[in-house]
């Protein structure tokens, strides 16, 4: 089973070899993929959760203004 803690490490541990290409030929942002891959599954879900909540707040503000 993939362990939550074992995948968590600091950004200064990201191997520099990975940072050469920023985009794939199809235009996919590889920096975002690498950033997500260096988070644990729990942290990835929190990022998603925060994005959804942030967009919901924006929608609420838009409706109220």
């Amino acid at each position, binding site marked *: *089973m*993939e*362990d*939550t803690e074992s995948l968590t490490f600091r950004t200064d541990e990201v*191997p520099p*070899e*990975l940072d050469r290409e920023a985009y*794939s030929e*199809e*235009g*996919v*942002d*590889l920096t*975002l*993929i*690498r*950033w*997500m*891959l*260096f*988070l644990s*599954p*729990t942290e*990835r*879900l929190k*990022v*998603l*959760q925060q*994005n*959804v*909540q942030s*967009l*919901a707040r924006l*929608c*609420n503000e838009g*409706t109220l203004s």
Partner: protein
Amino acid sequence: MRVPSVDFLALLQTLVTHGVDFIIVGGVCAVLHGAPIATFDLDLVHSRAPDNIDRLLSALRDLDAYYRGQGERRLHPDSTYLTSPGHQLLMTSLGPLDLLGTIGAHRNYADLLEHTVELQVGGLRLRVLNLETLIEIKEEVGHEKDKAVIPILRRTLQEKSRIEKLRNERG
């Protein structure tokens, strides 16, 4: 109108507490594997075994689940629909929940089980479709919205392999 709060982890916790057998698929599955995509609902393929349907119904009652897109009417899911291979698009007190009897080329819970991994997420052990099979299914479905995300999923898989290779080389 206030936008309802969404809490995927709490939603999953409720299902786990009720002992529901399910596999996480779709956008949340992609995110758990490290794909940087946005999604607003939780997609699950549930076991349609009678005992599991009972547990699922109990969880859905706790979540005050009802069908989305029915206007003012609050239609609640029942065992007949949950036993079908169709897709039940629900709203719950913790956010949108899609319960899928089958996905892709009519693959059900039992078919998908061997293509899953177990992940530890927020103290829960969750069964998640593996990234390779998620890509296959999105290719099978072939909808524009599915096709659009395939390059990101493929790249996530490739980058994951590169990182694992580098880790192994470094010991």
